Protein backbone atom coordinates (compact mmCIF):
# COMPACT_ATOMS: atom_id res chain seq x y z
CA UNK A 1 0.00 0.00 0.00
CA UNK A 2 2.71 2.47 1.00
CA UNK A 3 4.75 1.32 -1.92
CA UNK A 4 1.85 2.18 -4.20
CA UNK A 5 1.68 5.68 -2.69
CA UNK A 6 5.32 6.19 -3.54
CA UNK A 7 4.62 5.54 -7.21
CA UNK A 8 4.78 8.83 -9.10
CA UNK A 9 1.88 8.06 -11.46
CA UNK A 10 -0.40 6.87 -8.66
CA UNK A 11 0.38 9.97 -6.67
CA UNK A 12 -0.41 12.28 -9.60
CA UNK A 13 -3.69 10.51 -10.29
CA UNK A 14 -4.64 10.71 -6.64
CA UNK A 15 -3.91 14.43 -6.46
CA UNK A 16 -5.97 15.04 -9.59
CA UNK A 17 -8.90 13.09 -8.14
CA UNK A 18 -8.71 15.03 -4.89
CA UNK A 19 -8.61 18.33 -6.75
CA UNK A 20 -11.58 17.54 -9.00
CA UNK A 21 -13.53 16.18 -6.02
CA UNK A 22 -12.92 19.31 -3.94
CA UNK A 23 -13.91 21.56 -6.84
CA UNK A 24 -17.12 19.58 -7.41
CA UNK A 25 -18.00 19.74 -3.72
CA UNK A 26 -17.46 23.49 -3.72
CA UNK A 27 -19.76 24.02 -6.72
CA UNK A 28 -22.49 21.80 -5.27
CA UNK A 29 -22.28 23.48 -1.86
CA UNK A 30 -22.38 26.94 -3.45
CA UNK A 31 -25.43 26.10 -5.55
CA UNK A 32 -27.29 24.62 -2.59
CA UNK A 33 -26.55 27.60 -0.33
CA UNK A 34 -27.53 30.08 -3.05
CA UNK A 35 -30.78 28.23 -3.72
CA UNK A 36 -31.64 28.16 -0.01
CA UNK A 37 -30.90 31.88 0.44
CA UNK A 38 -32.87 32.82 -2.68
CA UNK A 39 -35.82 30.76 -1.49
CA UNK A 40 -35.65 32.45 1.91
CA UNK A 41 -35.86 35.86 0.21
CA UNK A 42 -38.69 34.72 -1.99
CA UNK A 43 -36.74 35.05 -5.28
CA UNK A 44 -37.38 32.34 -7.81
CA UNK A 45 -34.21 31.37 -9.62
CA UNK A 46 -34.02 30.23 -13.20
CA UNK A 47 -34.02 31.79 -16.63
CA UNK A 48 -37.80 32.21 -17.07
CA UNK A 49 -37.42 35.98 -16.69
CA UNK A 50 -35.69 36.10 -20.06
CA UNK A 51 -39.06 35.76 -21.77
CA UNK A 52 -40.85 38.44 -19.78
CA UNK A 53 -41.07 41.94 -21.23
CA UNK A 54 -38.68 44.42 -19.68
CA UNK A 55 -40.91 47.44 -19.19
CA UNK A 56 -38.11 49.95 -19.68
CA UNK A 57 -36.63 51.71 -22.70
CA UNK A 58 -33.16 51.72 -24.13
CA UNK A 59 -31.07 54.80 -24.85
CA UNK A 60 -29.09 53.36 -27.74
CA UNK A 61 -29.90 50.38 -29.88
CA UNK A 62 -28.85 49.16 -33.29
CA UNK A 63 -32.00 47.05 -33.61
CA UNK A 64 -35.61 48.06 -32.94
CA UNK A 65 -36.40 47.85 -29.23
CA UNK A 66 -39.32 48.80 -27.02
CA UNK A 67 -40.38 48.29 -23.42
CA UNK A 68 -42.56 45.37 -24.56
CA UNK A 69 -39.58 43.35 -25.73
CA UNK A 70 -38.38 40.44 -23.60
CA UNK A 71 -35.13 40.40 -21.67
CA UNK A 72 -33.37 38.00 -24.04
CA UNK A 73 -33.82 40.50 -26.88
CA UNK A 74 -32.32 43.23 -24.71
CA UNK A 75 -29.31 41.05 -23.97
CA UNK A 76 -28.77 40.54 -27.68
CA UNK A 77 -29.00 44.28 -28.21
CA UNK A 78 -26.52 44.79 -25.37
CA UNK A 79 -24.02 42.37 -26.88
CA UNK A 80 -24.41 44.04 -30.28
CA UNK A 81 -23.90 47.49 -28.75
CA UNK A 82 -20.76 46.26 -26.98
CA UNK A 83 -19.42 44.73 -30.19
CA UNK A 84 -20.29 47.90 -32.11
CA UNK A 85 -18.55 50.12 -29.58
CA UNK A 86 -15.65 47.67 -29.32
CA UNK A 87 -15.04 47.44 -33.05
CA UNK A 88 -14.94 51.22 -33.45
CA UNK A 89 -12.85 51.67 -30.32
CA UNK A 90 -10.37 48.92 -31.24
CA UNK A 91 -10.02 50.04 -34.85
CA UNK A 92 -9.38 53.66 -33.88
CA UNK A 93 -7.08 52.67 -31.01
CA UNK A 94 -5.04 50.62 -33.49
CA UNK A 95 -4.81 53.57 -35.84
CA UNK A 96 -3.76 55.94 -33.05
CA UNK A 97 -1.34 53.33 -31.70
CA UNK A 98 0.26 52.84 -35.12
CA UNK A 99 0.90 56.56 -35.45
CA UNK A 100 2.17 56.92 -31.88
CA UNK A 101 4.36 53.82 -32.14
CA UNK A 102 5.86 54.87 -35.45
CA UNK A 103 6.49 58.38 -34.14
CA UNK A 104 8.40 56.86 -31.25
CA UNK A 105 10.57 54.69 -33.48
CA UNK A 106 11.22 57.43 -36.04
CA UNK A 107 14.57 59.11 -36.41
CA UNK A 108 12.93 62.52 -35.96
CA UNK A 109 13.52 63.80 -32.42
CA UNK A 110 10.38 65.95 -32.35
CA UNK A 111 8.16 63.03 -33.43
CA UNK A 112 9.85 60.85 -30.84
CA UNK A 113 9.18 63.40 -28.10
CA UNK A 114 5.54 63.83 -29.14
CA UNK A 115 4.98 60.07 -29.20
CA UNK A 116 6.66 59.61 -25.84
CA UNK A 117 4.63 62.45 -24.26
CA UNK A 118 1.41 61.05 -25.67
CA UNK A 119 2.06 57.64 -24.13
CA UNK A 120 3.14 59.09 -20.81
CA UNK A 121 0.06 61.30 -20.50
CA UNK A 122 -2.74 59.06 -21.72
CA UNK A 123 -1.46 55.79 -20.33
CA UNK A 124 -1.28 57.21 -16.82
CA UNK A 125 -4.77 58.69 -16.52
CA UNK A 126 -7.45 56.19 -15.48
CA UNK A 127 -9.78 55.24 -18.31
CA UNK A 128 -12.93 56.18 -16.40
CA UNK A 129 -11.59 59.71 -15.91
CA UNK A 130 -10.90 60.01 -19.61
CA UNK A 131 -14.44 58.79 -20.40
CA UNK A 132 -15.88 61.46 -18.08
CA UNK A 133 -13.63 64.11 -19.59
CA UNK A 134 -14.68 63.43 -23.18
CA UNK A 135 -18.31 63.07 -22.18
CA UNK A 136 -18.22 66.41 -20.37
CA UNK A 137 -16.48 68.02 -23.34
CA UNK A 138 -19.01 66.70 -25.84
CA UNK A 139 -22.07 67.55 -23.75
CA UNK A 140 -20.77 71.09 -23.33
CA UNK A 141 -20.83 71.70 -27.07
CA UNK A 142 -23.30 74.37 -28.20
CA UNK A 143 -27.03 73.49 -28.31
CA UNK A 144 -28.67 72.64 -31.68
CA UNK A 145 -29.54 76.32 -32.40
CA UNK A 146 -25.90 77.35 -32.53
CA UNK A 147 -24.39 74.06 -33.71
CA UNK A 148 -21.00 73.84 -35.37
CA UNK A 149 -21.55 73.04 -39.04
CA UNK A 150 -19.29 71.60 -41.69
CA UNK A 151 -19.39 69.07 -44.56
CA UNK A 152 -23.08 68.45 -43.90
CA UNK A 153 -22.34 67.47 -40.30
CA UNK A 154 -23.65 69.15 -37.18
CA UNK A 155 -21.77 69.10 -33.91
CA UNK A 156 -24.03 69.77 -30.93
CA UNK A 157 -24.37 68.95 -27.25
CA UNK A 158 -26.97 66.35 -28.26
CA UNK A 159 -24.50 64.46 -30.34
CA UNK A 160 -22.86 64.42 -33.72
CA UNK A 161 -25.27 64.52 -36.66
CA UNK A 162 -23.93 62.94 -39.83
CA UNK A 163 -25.46 62.83 -43.30
CA UNK A 164 -27.07 59.41 -43.65
CA UNK A 165 -27.72 57.55 -46.89
CA UNK A 166 -31.43 57.28 -47.71
CA UNK A 167 -31.16 53.55 -48.04
CA UNK A 168 -33.20 50.65 -46.70
CA UNK A 169 -31.82 48.74 -43.72
CA UNK A 170 -31.26 45.50 -45.61
CA UNK A 171 -29.32 47.20 -48.40
CA UNK A 172 -27.25 49.02 -45.80
CA UNK A 173 -26.40 45.73 -44.13
CA UNK A 174 -25.47 44.17 -47.48
CA UNK A 175 -23.30 47.16 -48.33
CA UNK A 176 -21.51 46.98 -44.96
CA UNK A 177 -20.85 43.27 -45.51
CA UNK A 178 -19.41 44.08 -48.93
CA UNK A 179 -17.06 46.61 -47.33
CA UNK A 180 -15.96 43.99 -44.79
CA UNK A 181 -15.38 41.60 -47.70
CA UNK A 182 -13.21 44.25 -49.36
CA UNK A 183 -10.93 44.11 -46.31
CA UNK A 184 -11.00 40.35 -45.68
CA UNK A 185 -10.80 39.08 -49.28
CA UNK A 186 -7.31 40.36 -50.15
CA UNK A 187 -5.92 38.95 -46.90
CA UNK A 188 -7.54 35.59 -47.53
CA UNK A 189 -6.45 35.53 -51.17
CA UNK A 190 -2.91 36.31 -50.07
CA UNK A 191 -2.89 33.19 -47.87
CA UNK A 192 -4.53 30.52 -50.01
CA UNK A 193 -2.16 28.11 -51.69
CA UNK A 194 -4.33 28.32 -54.79
CA UNK A 195 -3.00 31.77 -55.49
CA UNK A 196 0.40 31.60 -53.83
CA UNK A 197 2.13 32.49 -57.01
CA UNK A 198 4.12 35.46 -58.15
CA UNK A 199 3.93 38.47 -55.86
CA UNK A 200 2.95 40.78 -58.71
CA UNK A 201 0.09 38.61 -59.97
CA UNK A 202 -1.16 37.97 -56.46
CA UNK A 203 -1.29 41.70 -55.88
CA UNK A 204 -3.40 42.35 -58.96
CA UNK A 205 -5.81 39.56 -57.99
CA UNK A 206 -6.15 41.13 -54.55
CA UNK A 207 -6.70 44.55 -56.07
CA UNK A 208 -9.40 43.13 -58.35
CA UNK A 209 -11.13 41.51 -55.37
CA UNK A 210 -11.15 44.78 -53.43
CA UNK A 211 -12.50 46.68 -56.41
CA UNK A 212 -15.24 44.09 -57.02
CA UNK A 213 -16.32 44.16 -53.37
CA UNK A 214 -16.45 47.97 -53.31
CA UNK A 215 -18.43 48.07 -56.56
CA UNK A 216 -20.89 45.61 -54.98
CA UNK A 217 -21.21 47.88 -51.95
CA UNK A 218 -22.05 50.88 -54.13
CA UNK A 219 -24.54 48.81 -56.16
CA UNK A 220 -26.27 47.65 -52.98
CA UNK A 221 -26.58 51.25 -51.84
CA UNK A 222 -28.13 52.34 -55.13
CA UNK A 223 -30.46 49.34 -55.32
CA UNK A 224 -31.73 49.85 -51.78
CA UNK A 225 -32.26 53.56 -52.22
CA UNK A 226 -35.57 54.83 -50.88
CA UNK A 227 -37.75 56.10 -53.74
CA UNK A 228 -38.25 59.83 -54.28
CA UNK A 229 -35.58 60.97 -51.87
CA UNK A 230 -32.14 62.49 -52.26
CA UNK A 231 -29.25 60.06 -51.92
CA UNK A 232 -28.11 61.69 -48.70
CA UNK A 233 -30.32 62.70 -45.83
CA UNK A 234 -28.75 65.85 -44.42
CA UNK A 235 -29.40 66.86 -40.83
CA UNK A 236 -30.96 70.30 -40.42
CA UNK A 237 -32.37 72.52 -37.72
CA UNK A 238 -36.16 72.71 -37.53
CA UNK A 239 -37.46 74.87 -34.76
CA UNK A 240 -35.58 73.93 -31.62
CA UNK A 241 -34.89 70.42 -32.84
CA UNK A 242 -32.66 68.70 -35.32
CA UNK A 243 -34.23 66.60 -38.07
CA UNK A 244 -32.76 63.99 -40.37
CA UNK A 245 -29.31 62.57 -40.64
CA UNK A 246 -27.71 60.01 -38.42
CA UNK A 247 -27.30 60.94 -34.77
CA UNK A 248 -24.28 59.68 -32.91
CA UNK A 249 -25.12 60.10 -29.24
CA UNK A 250 -22.54 61.83 -27.00
CA UNK A 251 -22.25 58.71 -24.81
CA UNK A 252 -21.09 56.65 -27.76
CA UNK A 253 -18.68 59.30 -29.09
CA UNK A 254 -17.18 59.86 -25.65
CA UNK A 255 -16.57 56.14 -25.18
CA UNK A 256 -15.09 55.64 -28.64
CA UNK A 257 -12.79 58.64 -28.24
CA UNK A 258 -11.71 57.56 -24.75
CA UNK A 259 -11.04 53.96 -25.77
CA UNK A 260 -9.21 55.07 -28.92
CA UNK A 261 -7.00 57.52 -27.08
CA UNK A 262 -6.36 55.41 -24.00
CA UNK A 263 -5.96 52.17 -25.98
CA UNK A 264 -3.82 54.04 -28.50
CA UNK A 265 -1.22 54.77 -25.85
CA UNK A 266 -0.89 51.08 -24.98
CA UNK A 267 -0.94 49.96 -28.61
CA UNK A 268 1.65 52.66 -29.35
CA UNK A 269 4.02 50.93 -26.96
CA UNK A 270 3.25 47.54 -28.53
CA UNK A 271 3.95 48.95 -32.00
CA UNK A 272 7.21 50.47 -30.77
CA UNK A 273 8.24 47.16 -29.26
CA UNK A 274 7.31 45.33 -32.46
CA UNK A 275 9.53 47.55 -34.57
CA UNK A 276 12.35 47.33 -32.04
CA UNK A 277 12.17 43.55 -32.30
CA UNK A 278 12.95 43.57 -36.04
CA UNK A 279 16.57 42.55 -36.52
CA UNK A 280 18.84 45.34 -37.64
CA UNK A 281 20.46 42.84 -39.97
CA UNK A 282 17.37 42.29 -42.15
CA UNK A 283 16.96 46.04 -42.57
CA UNK A 284 20.64 46.42 -43.48
CA UNK A 285 20.42 43.55 -45.95
CA UNK A 286 17.40 45.15 -47.61
CA UNK A 287 19.11 48.54 -47.83
CA UNK A 288 22.32 47.01 -49.15
CA UNK A 289 20.28 45.42 -51.96
CA UNK A 290 19.23 48.90 -53.01
CA UNK A 291 15.63 48.91 -51.74
CA UNK A 292 14.22 52.37 -50.98
CA UNK A 293 13.39 53.24 -47.36
CA UNK A 294 9.68 52.86 -48.17
CA UNK A 295 10.23 49.40 -49.67
CA UNK A 296 12.34 48.39 -46.68
CA UNK A 297 9.51 49.56 -44.42
CA UNK A 298 6.59 47.88 -46.20
CA UNK A 299 8.30 44.65 -47.24
CA UNK A 300 10.70 43.95 -44.40
CA UNK A 301 10.17 46.03 -41.26
CA UNK A 302 6.37 46.10 -41.15
CA UNK A 303 5.74 42.41 -41.89
CA UNK A 304 8.32 41.35 -39.31
CA UNK A 305 7.17 43.89 -36.72
CA UNK A 306 3.55 42.76 -37.18
CA UNK A 307 4.53 39.21 -36.32
CA UNK A 308 6.24 40.38 -33.16
CA UNK A 309 3.27 42.58 -32.18
CA UNK A 310 0.39 40.23 -32.82
CA UNK A 311 0.37 38.10 -29.64
CA UNK A 312 0.60 41.17 -27.38
CA UNK A 313 -1.87 43.04 -29.54
CA UNK A 314 -4.42 40.23 -29.10
CA UNK A 315 -3.99 40.57 -25.36
CA UNK A 316 -4.57 44.32 -25.58
CA UNK A 317 -7.68 43.88 -27.75
CA UNK A 318 -9.21 41.51 -25.22
CA UNK A 319 -8.46 44.09 -22.53
CA UNK A 320 -10.00 46.96 -24.51
CA UNK A 321 -13.08 44.86 -25.26
CA UNK A 322 -13.62 44.59 -21.52
CA UNK A 323 -13.09 48.35 -21.21
CA UNK A 324 -16.36 48.88 -23.12
CA UNK A 325 -18.09 48.19 -19.79
CA UNK A 326 -17.25 51.82 -18.98
CA UNK A 327 -20.49 52.45 -20.87
CA UNK A 328 -22.34 52.32 -17.57
CA UNK A 329 -20.41 55.37 -16.35
CA UNK A 330 -21.98 57.65 -18.95
CA UNK A 331 -25.18 55.76 -19.65
CA UNK A 332 -24.39 53.93 -22.85
CA UNK A 333 -26.51 50.79 -23.02
CA UNK A 334 -23.76 48.27 -23.55
CA UNK A 335 -23.92 44.63 -22.45
CA UNK A 336 -22.80 45.53 -18.93
CA UNK A 337 -25.29 48.34 -18.44
CA UNK A 338 -28.17 46.23 -19.72
CA UNK A 339 -27.15 43.52 -17.27
CA UNK A 340 -27.08 46.05 -14.45
CA UNK A 341 -30.53 47.38 -15.42
CA UNK A 342 -31.83 43.82 -15.69
CA UNK A 343 -30.66 43.11 -12.16
CA UNK A 344 -32.36 46.26 -10.89
CA UNK A 345 -35.66 45.49 -12.56
CA UNK A 346 -35.91 41.72 -12.35
CA UNK A 347 -33.84 40.93 -9.28
CA UNK A 348 -32.30 37.94 -11.09
CA UNK A 349 -28.76 38.89 -10.02
CA UNK A 350 -26.99 35.55 -10.34
CA UNK A 351 -28.57 34.65 -13.65
CA UNK A 352 -27.90 38.06 -15.19
CA UNK A 353 -24.28 38.10 -14.03
CA UNK A 354 -23.91 34.55 -15.33
CA UNK A 355 -25.14 35.68 -18.75
CA UNK A 356 -22.80 38.69 -18.64
CA UNK A 357 -19.78 36.56 -17.79
CA UNK A 358 -20.63 33.91 -20.38
CA UNK A 359 -21.16 36.63 -23.00
CA UNK A 360 -17.82 38.31 -22.38
CA UNK A 361 -16.09 34.96 -22.21
CA UNK A 362 -17.57 34.07 -25.61
CA UNK A 363 -16.61 37.43 -27.16
CA UNK A 364 -13.07 37.39 -25.87
CA UNK A 365 -12.41 33.70 -26.48
CA UNK A 366 -13.53 34.18 -30.10
CA UNK A 367 -11.26 37.19 -30.39
CA UNK A 368 -8.34 35.23 -28.95
CA UNK A 369 -9.08 32.25 -31.19
CA UNK A 370 -9.17 34.48 -34.25
CA UNK A 371 -5.81 36.01 -33.34
CA UNK A 372 -4.30 32.60 -32.64
CA UNK A 373 -5.32 31.51 -36.13
CA UNK A 374 -3.80 34.60 -37.73
CA UNK A 375 -0.71 34.18 -35.60
CA UNK A 376 -0.26 30.58 -36.66
CA UNK A 377 -0.92 31.39 -40.30
CA UNK A 378 1.76 34.06 -40.53
CA UNK A 379 4.27 32.56 -38.08
CA UNK A 380 7.81 32.42 -39.42
CA UNK A 381 8.72 28.92 -40.62
CA UNK A 382 11.62 27.01 -39.09
CA UNK A 383 14.12 28.09 -36.45
CA UNK A 384 14.89 31.75 -36.23
CA UNK A 385 18.45 32.82 -35.64
CA UNK A 386 18.65 36.24 -34.08
CA UNK A 387 21.38 38.23 -35.76
Amino acid at each position, binding site marked *: MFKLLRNQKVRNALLQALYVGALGALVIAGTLIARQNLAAQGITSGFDFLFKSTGWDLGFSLLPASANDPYWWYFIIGILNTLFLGSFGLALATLVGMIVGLAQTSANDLAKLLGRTYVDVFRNIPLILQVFFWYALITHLPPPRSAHEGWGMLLTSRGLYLPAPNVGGLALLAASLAVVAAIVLPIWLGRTSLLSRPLGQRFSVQLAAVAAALVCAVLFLFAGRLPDSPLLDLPSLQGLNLRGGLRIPPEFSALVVAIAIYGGSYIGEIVRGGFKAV*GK*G*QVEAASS*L*GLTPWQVFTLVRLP*LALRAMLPILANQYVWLMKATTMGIAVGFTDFFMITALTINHSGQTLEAIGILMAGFLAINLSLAALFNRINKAIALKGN*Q*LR*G
Partner: protein
Amino acid sequence: MTVPTTQEIAVRVEGMSKYYGTFHALRDINLTVARGEKIVVCGPSGSGKSTMIRCINRLEEHNAGSIMVLGTELNDDVGNIDEIRREVGMVFQHFNLFPHMTVLENCVLAPMLVRKMPRAEAEATARRYLEKVRIPEQASKYPGQLSGGQQQRVAIARSLCMQPQIMLFDEPTSALDPEMISEVLDVMVTLASEGMTMICVTHEMGFARRVADRVIFMDAGEIVEEAPPEIFFTSAKSERTQLFLSQVLGH
Protein backbone atom coordinates in the same frame (compact mmCIF):
# COMPACT_ATOMS: atom_id res chain seq x y z
CA MET B 1 52.16 46.20 -58.93
CA THR B 2 50.98 48.32 -61.83
CA VAL B 3 48.92 51.40 -61.12
CA PRO B 4 45.34 50.82 -62.38
CA THR B 5 43.68 53.43 -64.56
CA THR B 6 40.41 55.13 -63.51
CA GLN B 7 38.44 52.71 -65.67
CA GLU B 8 39.86 49.76 -63.85
CA ILE B 9 39.31 51.06 -60.34
CA ALA B 10 36.41 49.50 -58.48
CA VAL B 11 36.80 51.18 -55.11
CA ARG B 12 39.04 54.05 -54.08
CA VAL B 13 39.11 55.12 -50.44
CA GLU B 14 41.19 58.19 -49.60
CA GLY B 15 41.97 59.55 -46.15
CA MET B 16 38.74 58.12 -44.74
CA SER B 17 37.99 58.52 -41.03
CA LYS B 18 35.06 57.42 -38.94
CA TYR B 19 34.07 58.36 -35.40
CA TYR B 20 31.55 56.88 -33.01
CA GLY B 21 31.04 59.87 -30.74
CA THR B 22 34.56 60.59 -29.57
CA PHE B 23 35.83 57.12 -30.43
CA HIS B 24 38.04 57.20 -33.50
CA ALA B 25 36.97 53.98 -35.22
CA LEU B 26 38.80 54.40 -38.52
CA ARG B 27 41.93 56.51 -39.05
CA ASP B 28 43.04 57.78 -42.41
CA ILE B 29 42.16 54.72 -44.47
CA ASN B 30 43.63 54.62 -47.97
CA LEU B 31 42.72 51.73 -50.19
CA THR B 32 42.41 51.21 -53.90
CA VAL B 33 40.80 48.08 -55.28
CA ALA B 34 41.05 47.34 -58.98
CA ARG B 35 38.28 45.58 -60.88
CA GLY B 36 38.56 41.84 -60.52
CA GLU B 37 40.82 42.12 -57.53
CA LYS B 38 40.26 39.99 -54.44
CA ILE B 39 41.12 41.61 -51.13
CA VAL B 40 41.09 39.85 -47.78
CA VAL B 41 40.89 42.06 -44.72
CA CYS B 42 41.91 40.59 -41.38
CA GLY B 43 42.77 41.82 -37.92
CA PRO B 44 41.80 41.46 -34.29
CA SER B 45 38.19 42.08 -33.28
CA GLY B 46 37.39 45.77 -32.85
CA SER B 47 40.07 46.75 -35.34
CA GLY B 48 37.55 48.42 -37.64
CA LYS B 49 37.59 45.96 -40.54
CA SER B 50 33.81 45.47 -40.62
CA THR B 51 33.24 49.19 -40.19
CA MET B 52 35.50 49.85 -43.14
CA ILE B 53 33.67 47.62 -45.60
CA ARG B 54 30.31 48.79 -44.27
CA CYS B 55 31.35 52.31 -45.23
CA ILE B 56 31.76 51.21 -48.83
CA ASN B 57 27.98 50.74 -49.29
CA ARG B 58 26.98 53.37 -46.75
CA LEU B 59 25.67 51.11 -44.04
CA GLU B 60 28.00 53.31 -42.00
CA GLU B 61 28.62 56.93 -42.82
CA HIS B 62 32.26 58.06 -43.01
CA ASN B 63 33.13 61.39 -41.37
CA ALA B 64 36.18 62.47 -43.34
CA GLY B 65 37.97 61.60 -46.55
CA SER B 66 36.37 60.30 -49.72
CA ILE B 67 35.07 57.03 -51.13
CA MET B 68 34.63 56.47 -54.85
CA VAL B 69 32.83 53.34 -55.96
CA LEU B 70 32.85 52.52 -59.70
CA GLY B 71 33.50 56.17 -60.45
CA THR B 72 30.63 57.44 -58.28
CA GLU B 73 31.41 59.52 -55.23
CA LEU B 74 29.75 58.21 -52.07
CA ASN B 75 28.29 61.26 -50.32
CA ASP B 76 24.95 62.45 -48.97
CA ASP B 77 23.43 62.32 -52.46
CA VAL B 78 20.68 59.70 -52.23
CA GLY B 79 20.90 59.01 -55.95
CA ASN B 80 24.60 58.18 -55.64
CA ILE B 81 23.96 55.91 -52.68
CA ASP B 82 21.24 54.01 -54.58
CA GLU B 83 23.46 53.73 -57.65
CA ILE B 84 26.32 52.30 -55.60
CA ARG B 85 24.13 49.89 -53.64
CA ARG B 86 22.75 48.49 -56.88
CA GLU B 87 26.24 47.54 -57.98
CA VAL B 88 27.66 46.42 -54.65
CA GLY B 89 26.43 43.19 -53.08
CA MET B 90 26.96 42.37 -49.43
CA VAL B 91 27.02 39.14 -47.46
CA PHE B 92 26.68 39.37 -43.69
CA GLN B 93 27.95 37.31 -40.78
CA HIS B 94 24.40 36.46 -39.69
CA PHE B 95 23.06 35.91 -43.26
CA ASN B 96 20.19 38.38 -42.68
CA LEU B 97 17.78 36.61 -45.00
CA PHE B 98 14.17 37.78 -44.91
CA PRO B 99 12.63 35.07 -42.70
CA HIS B 100 9.05 35.70 -43.90
CA MET B 101 9.87 35.02 -47.55
CA THR B 102 10.84 31.81 -49.29
CA VAL B 103 14.35 31.39 -50.62
CA LEU B 104 13.11 32.21 -54.11
CA GLU B 105 11.26 35.33 -52.94
CA ASN B 106 14.39 36.45 -51.09
CA CYS B 107 16.25 36.20 -54.38
CA VAL B 108 13.74 37.86 -56.72
CA LEU B 109 12.71 40.72 -54.43
CA ALA B 110 15.50 43.20 -55.17
CA PRO B 111 15.90 42.46 -58.91
CA MET B 112 12.16 42.99 -59.39
CA LEU B 113 11.89 46.13 -57.30
CA VAL B 114 15.25 47.77 -57.90
CA ARG B 115 16.18 46.54 -61.38
CA LYS B 116 12.50 46.39 -62.49
CA MET B 117 13.12 42.91 -63.86
CA PRO B 118 9.99 40.99 -64.93
CA ARG B 119 9.01 38.17 -62.59
CA ALA B 120 9.81 35.32 -64.98
CA GLU B 121 13.26 36.66 -65.75
CA ALA B 122 14.00 37.34 -62.07
CA GLU B 123 12.96 33.79 -61.17
CA ALA B 124 15.10 32.31 -63.93
CA THR B 125 18.08 34.33 -62.72
CA ALA B 126 17.41 33.32 -59.13
CA ARG B 127 17.26 29.63 -60.04
CA ARG B 128 20.50 29.94 -61.97
CA TYR B 129 22.30 31.44 -58.97
CA LEU B 130 20.74 28.96 -56.55
CA GLU B 131 22.11 26.25 -58.86
CA LYS B 132 25.49 27.94 -58.68
CA VAL B 133 25.52 27.92 -54.87
CA ARG B 134 24.36 24.29 -55.08
CA ILE B 135 20.94 24.51 -53.43
CA PRO B 136 18.40 24.71 -56.29
CA GLU B 137 16.14 22.22 -54.49
CA GLN B 138 15.57 24.55 -51.52
CA ALA B 139 13.94 27.36 -53.53
CA SER B 140 10.48 27.01 -51.99
CA LYS B 141 11.66 26.60 -48.39
CA TYR B 142 11.88 29.33 -45.80
CA PRO B 143 15.27 30.46 -44.44
CA GLY B 144 14.46 29.11 -40.97
CA GLN B 145 14.18 25.62 -42.44
CA LEU B 146 17.76 25.62 -43.74
CA SER B 147 21.08 25.02 -42.05
CA GLY B 148 23.45 27.91 -41.42
CA GLY B 149 25.67 26.99 -44.34
CA GLN B 150 22.67 26.73 -46.67
CA GLN B 151 21.34 30.08 -45.46
CA GLN B 152 24.65 31.76 -46.12
CA ARG B 153 24.75 30.31 -49.62
CA VAL B 154 21.24 31.63 -50.22
CA ALA B 155 22.43 35.02 -48.98
CA ILE B 156 25.26 34.91 -51.54
CA ALA B 157 22.80 33.93 -54.27
CA ARG B 158 20.46 36.75 -53.22
CA SER B 159 23.27 39.27 -53.62
CA LEU B 160 24.37 37.80 -56.94
CA CYS B 161 20.83 38.05 -58.33
CA MET B 162 21.32 41.81 -58.44
CA GLN B 163 24.31 41.06 -60.72
CA PRO B 164 26.61 43.33 -58.77
CA GLN B 165 30.08 44.30 -59.92
CA ILE B 166 31.58 44.22 -56.43
CA MET B 167 30.88 41.83 -53.56
CA LEU B 168 31.55 42.65 -49.92
CA PHE B 169 31.80 39.78 -47.43
CA ASP B 170 31.59 40.65 -43.74
CA GLU B 171 32.88 37.61 -41.83
CA PRO B 172 30.68 35.24 -43.87
CA THR B 173 31.78 32.08 -42.08
CA SER B 174 32.12 33.31 -38.49
CA ALA B 175 28.61 32.26 -37.43
CA LEU B 176 28.83 28.82 -39.00
CA ASP B 177 29.52 25.39 -37.55
CA PRO B 178 32.95 24.12 -38.64
CA GLU B 179 31.60 21.56 -41.08
CA MET B 180 29.63 24.19 -42.97
CA ILE B 181 32.45 26.64 -43.44
CA SER B 182 33.93 24.87 -46.44
CA GLU B 183 30.65 24.75 -48.39
CA VAL B 184 30.46 28.54 -48.16
CA LEU B 185 34.16 29.06 -48.91
CA ASP B 186 33.87 26.78 -51.96
CA VAL B 187 31.19 29.05 -53.37
CA MET B 188 33.35 32.10 -52.68
CA VAL B 189 36.37 30.47 -54.39
CA THR B 190 34.25 29.74 -57.47
CA LEU B 191 33.05 33.32 -57.50
CA ALA B 192 36.63 34.58 -57.24
CA SER B 193 37.78 32.37 -60.10
CA GLU B 194 35.11 33.95 -62.30
CA GLY B 195 36.66 37.35 -61.86
CA MET B 196 34.32 39.00 -59.33
CA THR B 197 35.76 41.97 -57.45
CA MET B 198 35.69 40.88 -53.83
CA ILE B 199 36.50 42.48 -50.50
CA CYS B 200 36.30 39.88 -47.75
CA VAL B 201 36.62 40.40 -44.04
CA THR B 202 37.50 36.94 -42.81
CA HIS B 203 39.69 34.94 -40.50
CA GLU B 204 39.96 32.07 -42.97
CA MET B 205 43.66 32.30 -43.69
CA GLY B 206 43.56 29.29 -45.98
CA PHE B 207 41.05 31.12 -48.15
CA ALA B 208 43.25 34.23 -48.09
CA ARG B 209 46.28 32.23 -49.25
CA ARG B 210 44.37 30.58 -52.03
CA VAL B 211 42.29 33.43 -53.40
CA ALA B 212 43.51 36.85 -52.28
CA ASP B 213 45.49 39.17 -54.51
CA ARG B 214 46.28 41.26 -51.46
CA VAL B 215 45.83 40.75 -47.73
CA ILE B 216 45.19 43.78 -45.56
CA PHE B 217 45.87 43.72 -41.84
CA MET B 218 44.04 46.26 -39.68
CA ASP B 219 44.54 47.14 -36.05
CA ALA B 220 43.04 49.93 -33.93
CA GLY B 221 41.26 51.48 -36.91
CA GLU B 222 44.32 51.65 -39.15
CA ILE B 223 45.62 49.69 -42.08
CA VAL B 224 48.87 48.33 -40.67
CA GLU B 225 50.02 46.08 -43.45
CA GLU B 226 49.08 45.44 -47.05
CA ALA B 227 50.78 42.72 -49.06
CA PRO B 228 50.21 39.82 -51.44
CA PRO B 229 49.53 36.64 -49.43
CA GLU B 230 52.86 34.93 -50.15
CA ILE B 231 54.69 37.88 -48.63
CA PHE B 232 52.07 38.61 -45.94
CA PHE B 233 52.19 35.14 -44.42
CA THR B 234 55.94 34.65 -44.59
CA SER B 235 57.59 37.99 -44.04
CA ALA B 236 55.20 40.51 -42.51
CA LYS B 237 56.94 43.78 -41.73
CA SER B 238 55.01 44.96 -38.69
CA GLU B 239 55.30 43.37 -35.26
CA ARG B 240 51.55 43.64 -34.73
CA THR B 241 50.92 41.62 -37.89
CA GLN B 242 53.40 38.98 -36.83
CA LEU B 243 51.78 38.72 -33.39
CA PHE B 244 48.31 38.41 -34.95
CA LEU B 245 49.48 35.77 -37.41
CA SER B 246 51.16 33.76 -34.69
CA GLN B 247 47.85 33.78 -32.77
CA VAL B 248 45.72 32.83 -35.76
CA LEU B 249 48.03 30.30 -37.35
CA GLY B 250 49.55 29.06 -34.09
CA HIS B 251 47.50 25.92 -33.78
